[in-house]
């Protein structure tokens, strides 16, 4: 590359590069951006990068790191090179994530009511009953508006074949949406000139739509619902997001200690006495929402909240018990779940899953183990995973014998390669290619839905690393969806 900022960029043919074509030419939609970068020297860019960082500090978009004697504030690393998605590709993503969210909602209704999908033999009963996230208390309960997963975060990757694949559905308390918006704000402040040259979809309408969605699921008999955001408090790493959303919606940000329940109604403690609360967007996990029913030691929740919910006097968003539908085991059935409830073909691909319990699959797994990832179905957080091409011959034999002994406990998936994107690396003072994924945000309400046109592009900042989580040194990028 001729540009000084790209002098150390290495192009890898085996990966999908979001910015460059196979012949190392810049993709059309990135050309204008490139022209802008070519006018800048390394020093210019360094100073821009510093300004963008200052913008995050000043906006207070930070998280605390607790050291020995003092707490330090840090920002999530932010990259000045935006990811661009053209409108055709985005249409595909948007339809796909909405289809998944709707199917998951119907699945949850079924799971907590008649369980027809189990009776039809599509999802095995033990997948549900063995899940720690299945809430017995929710059986037979009709959530307001019939909605369980009001807010879904869908994690997508682009494989080397150029197709998007869903990696994970998050329908408990998906976070990250505030970063989508503040990444945009920071980029606008730093590189305002570029925005004139692209027609980009806005991301600032999320909070307004979220409020409208919350209002569609108000309890019966309430005209003007009082909605609130429930946060664990200022020390939570996502506190910025909670306060951002509350402010964006113009509603109160409450903590558990601000609420109380009387005669199965929920109230907040205001300067003029109690005020009834109708819809709670809670950013507190299921097990902490009510010490009377779940974890008795929880100080984050509200005593009696769950009972008020079951009486239909308050709506909790997302509904308790959604976790049963977003674990790894259910993920493998998503194509069948979509087909069963919507009678549609899945728009977004699932990473193909081989079940060790199926003889044909098992045969394939044993023959192709080098190219597969073997995962236990009931673990989370990356435990018990074996990546075929990183194992020694002896280790492969151990894995083979384990999965043959417990075929029901294991699945296998092809090793997916995340696409790469040019990313500014501070230490190198230049752009390098790094792996990225994309989290989208979908809202479902009664007769209303909304998909944020943009998303959180997460970047694995360590060279060659595939893990994009912020806890493991991941950063993020502004994500532009182009208008038609």
């Amino acid at each position, binding site marked *: 590359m001729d540009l000084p900022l790209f002098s150390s960029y290495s192009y890898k043919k085996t990966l999908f590069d979001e910015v460059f074509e196979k012949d190392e030419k810049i993709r059309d939609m990135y050309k204008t951006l490139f022209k802008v970068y070519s006018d800048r020297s390394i020093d210019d860019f360094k100073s821009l990068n510093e300004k963008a960082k200052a913008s995050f500090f000043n906006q207070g978009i930070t998280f605390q790191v607790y050291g020995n004697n003092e707490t330090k504030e840090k920002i999530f690393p932010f990259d000045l090179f935006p990811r661009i998605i053209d409108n055709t590709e985005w249409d595909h993503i948007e339809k796909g994530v909405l289809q998944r969210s709707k199917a998951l909602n119907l699945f949850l209704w079924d799971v907590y009511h008649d369980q027809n999908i189990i009776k039809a033999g599509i999802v095995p009963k033990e997948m549900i009953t063995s899940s720690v996230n299945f809430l017995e208390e929710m059986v037979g309960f009709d959530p307001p508006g019939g909605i369980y997963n009001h807010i879904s975060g869908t994690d997508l990757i682009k494989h080397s074949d150029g197709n998007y694949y869903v990696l994970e559905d998050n329908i408990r308390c998906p976070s990250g949406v505030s970063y989508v918006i503040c990444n945009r704000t920071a980029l606008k402040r730093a590189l305002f000139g570029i925005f004139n040259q692209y027609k980009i979809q806005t991301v600032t309408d999320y909070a307004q739509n979220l409020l409208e969605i919350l209002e569609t699921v108000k309890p019966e008999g309430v005209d003007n619902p009082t909605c609130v955001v429930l946060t664990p408090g200022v020390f939570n790493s996502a506190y910025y997001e909670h306060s951002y959303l509350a402010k964006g919606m113009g509603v109160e940000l409450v*903590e558990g200690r601000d609420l109380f329940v009387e005669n199965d109604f929920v109230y907040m*403690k205001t300067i003029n006495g109690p005020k009834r609360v109708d819809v709670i967007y809670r950013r507190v996990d299921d097990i902490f929402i009510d010490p009377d029913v779940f974890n008795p030691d929880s100080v984050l929740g509200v005593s009696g909240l769950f009972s008020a919910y079951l009486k239909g006097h308050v709506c909790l968003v997302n509904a308790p018990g959604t976790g049963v539908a977003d674990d790894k085991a259910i993920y493998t059935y998503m194509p069948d779940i979509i087909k069963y409830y919507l009678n549609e073909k899945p728009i977004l691909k699932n990473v193909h899953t081989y079940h060790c319990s199926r003889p044909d699959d098992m045969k394939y797994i044993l023959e192709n183990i080098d190219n597969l990832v073997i995962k236990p179905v009931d673990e989370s957080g990356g435990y018990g995973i074996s990546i075929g091409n990183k194992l020694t011959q002896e280790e492969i034999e151990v894995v083979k014998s384990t999965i043959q002994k417990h075929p029901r406990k294991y699945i296998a998936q092809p090793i997916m390669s995340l696409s790469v994107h040019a990313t500014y690396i501070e230490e190198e003072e230049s752009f390098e290619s790094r792996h990225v994924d994309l989290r989208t945000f979908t809202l479902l309400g009664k007769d209303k839905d909304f998909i944020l046109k943009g998303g959180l592009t997460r970047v694995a900042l360590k060279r060659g690393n595939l893990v994009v989580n912020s806890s493991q040194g991941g950063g993020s990028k502004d994500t532009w969806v182009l208008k038609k």
Partner: protein
Amino acid sequence: MLARVANNLFWMGRYIERTEHVARYLSVNYFSSLDAPNEFSQSRQFVLQSLLFMVGDTEKEDKILDEPDVLFDIGLNNEKEYSIINCVKLARENANSARDLISTELYETINKFYHFVLNYCVEDYKKKKLYDFTTNIIEFTAILKAKIRNTLLQDEAFSIIRLGLNLERSIQVIRIINAKYNDILIIKGKQNGQISKNNQSVQHQELLKEHRTDISLEWSTLLKCVESYDMMRRFHKKTPDNINTLDFLILNENCPRSVVNSLAEVAKHIQVLSCEKNIPKNSSIFLVNKIYNEYKYKYIEEIEVDFRTFIEDILKKLVAISKKMEEEYFTY
């Protein structure tokens, strides 16, 4: 508005106001002493003691003070409750907890302020940048107050912040008056000592004249510490002395920094919070109006005659109001 958040906003207002007064007292007093007319009020020990007196640090009374240490304690020492850095930290912590209620513009300014103080080089501050530091602090607080006035919805949240600001203002102005009054008493004590040694008539007259100028300069410094010097000159058109200065700073209803003006603001904003038609006896709104009216209808001579009692009495009453408000509005 949530009771917990109301408490946060109240204290955010108080800490912003406190920061400003500490910074201004530090700056004005320090710099005016550099060319003070007599040796005594120019002496570093005298000024440093006065600075510590104002922030309420009595630990080092009667001890030889180290200038960089004192400046550090008041400006950037995290471990001193009264330090500017601590006040800014607490203002921001309180703003954090009420972040959804205040405007983005206000929050960003507080945050920027916090990072400014946090990242200020301690060595530079102690040795050469006292003026730069304090000026920036004073400007930041002015911007903050402008953002409060101009970007917030003027509802209960706004009134809570203004209430905190004005209650704190009245307390800080009283503290500043007290500190300077104390300085003047010390200077007078020294002068009396000099006079008893020199009783020849010509010299005696000159000395008295000199002393009057010295004292008048201290009253001017007091007015500058409260940013009210120019307006006091405009209003009284006289050289500052004990009566006109105290009258202006305590009882003048049009002086934005005067105690009675601050109390009027407190009374106005507490009315917004209360939904009671009849004011119950001993409620915070009752106590606020009681003290406001007491000072509204007072002569300065009534205060001047027993200044110590005035200071003790008014501070006690203001603390009682703050406690009462906590009981009535902030309990959660």
